C-alpha cells in the first residue's frame, strides 16, 4: 500500500456520545480510538487504566450497560449511545467511597493501585449478581484480572468485605449511578 492511499491521511472522525457515570459526554474521535483511550484522554477520566492493550490484564475493565468489559478491546465508536460506569462512578453519590472501594481500603486490597480500577468495576458488577459470595467464589470472581502487587489475598478479602458492607447498607445497588 502506498502512502497516498493510507486512510490515515484522511482519517474520518466520528462523534461519540456516551453517558459516563450518569453524565452525558461527547467527543469527536477517529474510529480507531480505543474505548480505554477515549475515556482516559478524550474525556479525561484517567481512573481507567491500561495495562496490556490485549485484553488479558483487566485493568481497563469498565461497565457498559452494567456488564464488565475490557475497554482496551473496544473502539469508542462502537459504543455510541452506551451507558458506561468507570471506577470514578463507583463512589457513593456524595463522593465518599462506595462499598467496594471502602472494602479495598479496609482490607488493604491495593498496593500500587494500577490494577485496582479494573477490580473495583468487576467486583461491583459481580456483587450485583452474587450478593453473598463464598471465599472460593470471591476468588473466582476476580480471576480474570491481574495484580502484580497483592498476591490477591487481600482482594479476595475485599470482595467478601464489600458484600458485607452492601448487605449492611441494604443491597447497595443504588450507589452506582446508571
Amino acid at each position, binding site marked *: 500500500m502506498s502512502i497516498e492511499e493510507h486512510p490515515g491521511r484522511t482519517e*474520518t472522525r466520528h462523534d461519540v456520545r456516551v453517558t459516563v457515570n450518569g453524565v452525558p459526554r461527547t467527543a469527536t474521535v477517529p474510529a*480507531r480510538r480505543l474505548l480505554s483511550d477515549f475515556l482516559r484522554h478524550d474525556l479525561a477520566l484517567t481512573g481507567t487504566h491500561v495495562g496490556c492493550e490485549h485484553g488479558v490484564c483487566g485493568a481497563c475493565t469498565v461497565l457498559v450497560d452494567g456488564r464488565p468489559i*475490557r475497554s*482496551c478491546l473496544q473502539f469508542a*465508536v462502537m459504543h455510541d449511545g452506551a451507558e458506561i460506569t468507570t471506577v470514578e462512578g463507583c463512589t457513593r453519590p456524595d463522593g465518599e467511597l462506595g462499598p467496594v472501594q471502602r472494602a479495598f481500603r479496609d482490607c488493604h486490597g491495593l498496593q500500587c493501585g494500577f490494577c485496582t480500577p479494573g477490580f473495583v468495576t468487576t467486583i461491583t458488577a459481580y456483587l450485583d449478581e452474587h450478593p453473598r459470595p463464598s471465599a472460593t467464589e470471591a476468588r473466582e470472581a476476580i480471576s480474570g484480572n491481574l495484580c502484580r502487587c497483592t498476591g490477591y489475598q487481600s482482594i479476595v478479602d475485599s470482595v467478601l468485605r464489600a458484600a458485607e458492607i452492601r448487605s449492611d447498607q441494604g443491597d447497595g445497588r443504588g450507589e452506582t449511578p446508571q
Partner: protein
Amino acid sequence: MKPSAFAYHRPGTVDEAVATLAGVGDDGKVLAGGQSLVPMLNMRLAAPAHLVDVNRVDGLDEVRVVDDGAGASVRVGAAARHTDVEHDAEVAAVLPLLRQALEHVAHPTIRNRGTTVGSLVHADPAAELNAVLALLGGSVTLRSTTGSRVVNASELVTGPMQTCLRPDELATEAAFPVPQGHTGTAWTEVSRRAGDYAVCGVGVLVTVDDELRVRSARAAYVSMGPVPEVLDLTEPVAGIAAGGARPDEWAAAGRLATARLEPDDDIHATAAYRGHLAGVLTARAARAAAERAVARAGDTTGAST
C-alpha cells in the same frame, strides 16, 4: 500498541452488512465482540482498511432453541455473546455441553463481550466452541449479497485461524444440534492458568441404550491439531455399563485418543505430554459424560412413567 486506521461501517441490517462487505472486498473484516480481533489490531498483526461492526444488526443477537422437525438445535446469532448462551436456561437444559465448554472460554469479562459465532469463524485451534460444533455436527449459516449457504463444522474450519468464509460473507448464525437419545456430555481441559487456552481440551458425547450401556461415544479436542479433531471412541467402550464402569474400562478410550491424535509442541507443553493428557482427559470426560447420560436417561424414564 495502537491499531492502524480503518474505515468504520455500522450496518443496521444483514442486507446492509453483506452489501458493505461486498463493497469493501478483501480489505474488510467483520467486527463483533472484538475479543480476538482487537488484540491483533492493537498489535498490528492485522490491519484491515475497513471494519464492519455487526453489533447493531437487527436480529443477530438472538439465542433460540429451534425444533424444525429434523431435530432440535440451539441457534446462536452472530452478535450473541458467550454470556448469553452460557446463562440461557433453556439452552442449558437441552444442550448442557455448551455451558460446560463455555465456562472454559477465557474469563467472564471476555465472555460478556465475545461472541460465539465470532469465536467459530476465528477458528483458533484452541477454541472450545469449534470443537463443540464439530462434536455435535453443527453448522454455520453464511450470508452474502448473492445468497446464503450453510456449512457444517468440518467444512467451516480449513486450518488454524482459517475458514471457508469468503471475504464478502457474514456468518449470521450457528446451529448446535441437540443429540438424540439418552446422551450425556462433559468438557474437561487442562490449561496453564485458569481461563487460558487449553493445553489439551476434550468434549465427550456419550449415548447409552435403555439398559444404560454405552451405545456410542465421540470426542472432540482442542489444541491437539490445526483444526478441531473429532474421534469416535465407541469401539473400546461399546457395551460397558455407563454408570458403573471401572476406570480402566474408560482408559481404553483414552488410549485410543493418545494413539490417534498428533498434537504439536509449543512453549507450554510438548506433543508427548499433550498426547498423554488427551488419554487422561478423554477417560475422565467419557466417564463423566456417561454418568450424565445415565442420569438423564433416568430423568427421561421418570418423566415418561
